[in-house]
């Protein structure tokens, strides 16, 4: 049974459940896709794990109970509903408890993401051959590349959300291209990669070759680069690193399920200054074409832009249904699941600092000694302590207003988030959003996100 075909059945099940429980909903999801990986020594074509199933949700008046199955027959789904209702009865249903999840405004709609060339309409052998030629041509760029891997991945996700007011369906196509090279010299490895992931199809297959060239040149500098002397420096964060900073520093810290758990310092700073006045930050799942975007979240809230920081002031959190209900906050479209079989949490989507007015040249020219830090690889949140950890591939030294050829690798940025945010003195004039990232809640619950920003000039501790 296809996900879209479940509308009537799930609507009926929700109606039946709500004869006894104050609120019920259903979410069904599936993924269909292929991955092509061609490297110098081996190649592979794989099919995306379908992650296809249904989750039924009931609110007892006190808490939520969910039951999931991947056996998509009417008999099995109704059995799942019956078991869910039994569990609710055992736990106790109390409609007078005073808590009511907001079902939202009535809406019945199907949404389709952008798609110009459907990859499934293309011959697989042509895609494989294209990847092979690309791998060969990129490897030829430098003799130090010992393995050149070209990865193409395309998928479409079907998602259906049903509650008493809503029947929403979306199909989101995503194309991902990654060029991944291993440089090797005198017994040392240096991996480099570039690429992007966006909503759309084969029309997105060609990743910017100049970007790979730049990445390759950086990698060659890094092969024998040393470690930086730990210290606090004048820094310029690249747009990609600024994006990760936005995500880790204030994205996670404003997920309001953390407010419920008293795990977010941000809860005490709503409507207070947390950053330099010029700083504006957003979370926006309605941003067209980028891979963290969607039409509705997994709890039925339609997409819209949320401003998190306005003129340096923290103005909003990112909610899921449960935390919005309990905290009596305005809902935002941030209730997201890793897949149908996972719980929905308050999660980011596309999170970014807005661009300002300064050019990179202006930022560099009055730095006596500092670093341009680029190519983020990993980050971790600390919403309670407002600590930050960002890892980047390299820092490039700036001396007397000029970029030098001194590179240091790898780099870890640590510090106290308000100190970093308040030290921002210049904000670049161009926004760039990177598409390759995933986000975990701690070490699980992985969802697709993007993050971005302009160049940022600030002070940071590097090691």
């Amino acid at each position: 049974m296809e996900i879209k075909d479940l509308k009537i059945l799930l609507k009926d099940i929700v109606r039946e459940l709500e004869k006894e429980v104050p609120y019920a909903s259903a979410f069904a999801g599936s993924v269909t896709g292929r991955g092509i990986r061609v490297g110098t020594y081996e190649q592979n074509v794989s099919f995306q794990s379908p992650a296809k199933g249904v989750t039924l949700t009931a609110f007892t008046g006190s808490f939520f109970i969910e039951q999931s199955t991947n056996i998509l027959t009417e008999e099995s789904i109704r059995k799942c509903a019956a078991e869910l209702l039994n569990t609710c009865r055992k736990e106790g249903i109390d409609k007078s408890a005073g808590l009511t999840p907001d079902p939202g405004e009535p809406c019945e709609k199907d949404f389709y993401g952008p798609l110009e060339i459907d990859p499934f309409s293309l011959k697989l052998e042509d895609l494989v051959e294209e990847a092979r030629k690309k791998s060969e041509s990129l490897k030829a760029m430098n003799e130090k590349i010992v393995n050149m891997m070209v990865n193409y991945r395309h998928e479409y996700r079907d998602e259906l959300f049903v509650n008493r007011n809503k029947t929403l369906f979306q199909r989101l196509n995503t194309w991902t291209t990654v060029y991944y090279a291993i440089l090797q010299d005198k017994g040392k490895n240096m991996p480099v990669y570039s690429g992007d992931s966006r909503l759309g199809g084969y029309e997105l297959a060609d990743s910017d070759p100049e970007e790979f060239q730049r990445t390759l040149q950086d990698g060659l500098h890094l092969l024998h680069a040393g470690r930086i002397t730990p210290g606090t420096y004048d820094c310029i964060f690249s747009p990609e690193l600024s994006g990760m900073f936005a995500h880790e520093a204030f994205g996670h810290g404003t997920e309001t399920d953390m407010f419920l758990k008293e795990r977010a310092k941000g809860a005490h700073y709503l409507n207070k200054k947390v950053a330099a006045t010029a700083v504006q930050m957003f979370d926006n799942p309605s941003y067209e074409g980028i891979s963290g975007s969607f039409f509705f979240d997994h709890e039925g809230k339609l997409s819209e832009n949320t401003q998190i920081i306005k003129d340096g002031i923290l103005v909003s959190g990112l909610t899921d249904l449960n935390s919005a209900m309990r905290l009596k906050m305005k809902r935002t479209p941030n209730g997201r699941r890793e897949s149908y079989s996972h719980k929905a949490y308050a999660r980011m989507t596309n999170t970014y600092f807005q661009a300002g007015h300064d050019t990179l040249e202006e930022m560099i020219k009055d730095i006596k000694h500092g670093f341009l830090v680029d190519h983020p690889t990993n980050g971790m949140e600390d919403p309670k302590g407002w600590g930050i950890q960002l890892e980047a591939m390299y820092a490039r030294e700036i001396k007397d207003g000029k970029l030098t050829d001194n590179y240091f690798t790898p780099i870890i940025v640590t510090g106290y988030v308000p100190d970093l945010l308040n030290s921002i003195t210049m904000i670049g004039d161009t926004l760039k959003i990177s598409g390759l990232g995933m986000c975990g809640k701690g070490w699980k619950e992985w969802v697709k996100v993007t993050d971005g920003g302009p160049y940022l000039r600030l002070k940071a501790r590097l090691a």
Partner: protein
Amino acid sequence: MKKMIISLLEAHKEIGSWNLTVNREERDELYLIFDTVEQKRRIEEVLYHIEILVHKEKEKEGKRFTGSSSFQALPGESESALQRKIDDAVTAASLALNPFYDYDEFVPAKEKAEICDPLIRSDRARAMDEMKEKIFDIMKANPDVRLASSEIFLTCIRQERFNSKGLSHTSDKSEALLEAVFLTGEGEDEVESVLTREERFIKNIDLEKVMQKYIGFARDNLTAKLPKTGKYDVIFTEEALDNFFDFYISQLNASMKYNKMSVFSPGETIADEFSGDRLTLSFNPHIPGGYRSMDYDHYGTLTRKTEVIENGIVKGFSADRKYATYLNMPCTGSPGNTEVKTGSRSFKDLETEGTYVLSRFSTFTPNALTGAFSGEIRNGYVVKNGKRVPVKGGSVTGMMKEAMSRVFFSSEEVLRRSYKGPEYIKVLNVDIAGE
């Protein structure tokens, strides 16, 4: 459905070999915010994982090639839908040919990996209640600390394995996941510590001991200060152990060697010089309760313990059937749990004046290709005038090759997840960035 799948696979003329794994998973999840239930969940899932191998002979080159492709089938899929999936997989495999390899002939397992908690298998509801009650009892005994949130996931998976070489094997495995967040302090000075443990057996989580430890970490964070910047001796323990040897686990996997991503060869030393203990590292797929314990690997090869580093010298690689064929090296099956030989010094001997003992990091995952490691310090202490002074913040950085040249392993041993080895690993002269 599995009979239908096997029948379709066996009938397909272009399939040289095939592998079918059927996973029936049942999972119960409990989510608490403080002492109130936020959500309860139950998941039941059946999945069929299929891998097929297509063997081709290219007459011109006089060589044989193999293409592989894998996909999943869902319960209730029709025969025609399955046939389409198989046909697509054969097409895909035929387009991505690599040098020839095939699965091993089936060999019955003499040992059986113990990887299923009997209570998770028989009565997850009771196991969940017992864990919850124990957690609440421990919290009652620590009134200055609050349990902000906890998540308990208990999973039982029945796995059936079949392949074209005669493999027919059934096993049960369990997963017990606990995530708990502890808060202590007042107002804006309130601090937390976050516990995440995932084991096959509930008893391996050792609830009482691990919760007291993390409650202690939360209390330490009330007074913890930034470490001083400089080079210090550092003892890595607790969470740092989970990924500490990732560099060697990756580099000594034959797939990395084949793809020219490994810088090691047998007979080479892992460091230029040694001023401490020398690493002996094995992969052991037969540790009871080990997270990577298994009877057969993904290709159906019978697994065995493999020593890859002995006294600081590379002995060999772990190699599944594919890469063992490509590199003409012994087939060991996929690597299992990481087992590291303990040292002769106790923790008391290692915990000297001025040493940092670091337990928790934001992340600590040495780079699989370069050996570089770094991590923001979330919990630790420094021994100052004989006292343990808590530290937090700042970072530790280094390179595994240098670390292994001046390392000491404790005599105390621990099993956590897929690591069995020294509970404390002391590395001399490590860079710390802080104050």
